[in-house]
């Protein structure tokens, strides 16, 4: 072994180390891909040999083709419509929730006045608002956006209040020691300390916003991914339904990824457990 290694070119160790480090990162990613790829292959196989009827469960390759067709046609119109609704509804719901969470979180007086009401409203399953929203606001955009805003409101509000109430009293005392005003206390200590919890709320609020988007569009819409879903059902095209589901998953993952990236950037200071190191 040693006599052989003498004859090897000198760069060999360096070139060997780089792909090794890369392959470690890739190996983790490949682990994540293994299960979905296996399922897709299995489905393709099962449909091709006729165990599943293709009018009920189209083969993955067929869904890909449908997706390609849609991408050349009306898909972008639906995506734009859905995206706008989610963004607008989420923005309205989340900002209202942040305002109320700050208010209730910071003031016991506000908590006494408002918290029971919110607790009551929260116990209404949000989809129960649908008929009422349709009656009051009609079937156009407003009712959809209000429904999405309601869906996004509660997770953001709940996590926001909890985030503020979980702030270490000892850190707040440092600010009091310096004679900080209420506003300065909020800006310098309470807001940054509550940020991790606020992000948890925003992320679950966003995922609920997507959920309520689908609910709203399934009920009454002429555009949007939810419409695509119900259109696929009405025309007995499971491939369209599955294509819409895939697009929804991608958009949900993408929007959550944006928030997660922002969270990671703003919260590098957190000293948290990252999970056990994965075995190679």
């Amino acid at each position, binding site marked *: 072994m040693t006599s052989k290694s003498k004859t090897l070119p000198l760069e060999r160790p360096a070139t060997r180390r780089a792909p090794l480090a890369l392959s470690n990162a890739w190996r983790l990613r490949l682990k994540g891909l293994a299960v979905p790829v296996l399922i897709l292959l299995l489905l393709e196989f099962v449909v091709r040999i006729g165990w599943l009827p293709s009018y009920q469960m189209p083969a993955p390759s067929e869904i890909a083709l449908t997706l390609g067709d849609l991408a050349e046609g009306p898909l972008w119109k639906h995506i734009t419509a859905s995206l706008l609704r989610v963004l607008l509804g989420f923005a309205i719901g989340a900002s209202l929730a942040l305002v109320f969470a700050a208010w209730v979180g910071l003031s016991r007086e506000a908590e006494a006045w408002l918290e029971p009401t919110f607790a009551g409203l929260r116990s209404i399953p949000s989809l129960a608002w649908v008929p009422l929203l349709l009656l009051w606001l009609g079937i156009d955009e407003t009712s959809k956006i209000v429904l999405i805003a309601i869906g996004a409101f509660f997770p953001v509000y709940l996590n926001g209040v909890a985030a503020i109430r979980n702030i270490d009293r*000892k*850190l707040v*005392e*440092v600010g*009091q*020691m*310096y004679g900080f005003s209420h506003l*300065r206390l909020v800006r*310098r*200590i309470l807001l*940054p*300390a509550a*940020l991790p919890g606020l992000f948890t709320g925003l992320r679950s609020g966003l995922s609920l916003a997507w959920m309520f988007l689908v609910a709203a569009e399934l009920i009454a819409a002429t555009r949007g991914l939810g419409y695509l879903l119900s259109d696929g059902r009405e025309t007995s095209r499971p491939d369209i339904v599955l294509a819409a589901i895939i697009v929804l998953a991608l958009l949900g993952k993408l929007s959550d990824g944006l928030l997660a990236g922002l969270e990671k950037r703003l*919260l*590098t*200071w*957190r*000293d948290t457990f990252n999970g056990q190191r994965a075995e190679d």
Partner: protein
Amino acid sequence: MTDHLLDIRVERKTFASTTVLQNIHLQLQPRETVSLLGPSGCGKSTLLRIVAGLEQDFHGELRSNAGEVAFVFQEPRLMPWLTVAQNIGFSADGNYDKAWVGQLIDEVGLSGFAEALPKALSGGMAQRVAIARGLYSRPDVLLLDEPFSAVDAFTRMKLQDLLLQLAERHAIALLLVTHDVDEALYLSDRVLVMDNRPSRIRQEVEVPLAHPRDRRDPLLAQLKALSLTELQRAHVI
């Protein structure tokens, strides 16, 4: 009266129906180091919080000729989202005096850690940052609440010497709460032995030794015996 930095009289301080402090009279001269020695929960931290102005509900009087008074807590209490430098200049919001912060970082022996986040610091290092943060406002009096109780014995000795050095250099009076007899005697000009509840000052022990002191000085051992006797009589130990 006027040459005292601080003059504190607490007739009574109660929590609910229990009296925590009673008839306490405490004066602090410029550049003096005074320790309050007693068991945990005897009310000495409460006394310190009264001096700091964190606790205002008490019967008594607090007279101060001191300019700035700063506080070092038992734990570092650093803001985890701020760097070491930002933590030290915390009281000045964003626009802290960078040169002064840099000097303080050097003085507490953390050169090169200005941009580090608290999660990267050991307990002793974090407490150094906390001390530097206390010094940032150029205080006349530094109040310390069991500041070294959470670090190991060797780090503690180092931090004690650092504290004395800094107090000397910046002409700061120290009022320190501790349950460590050696620490109290090593650091202080006067040690006030506290009674158990309701807390009173049971005995004042003068430590007539110049700085820097030798931890092995026989007088320190003698005074320790005296303090321990007093603590025993107070049924503390």
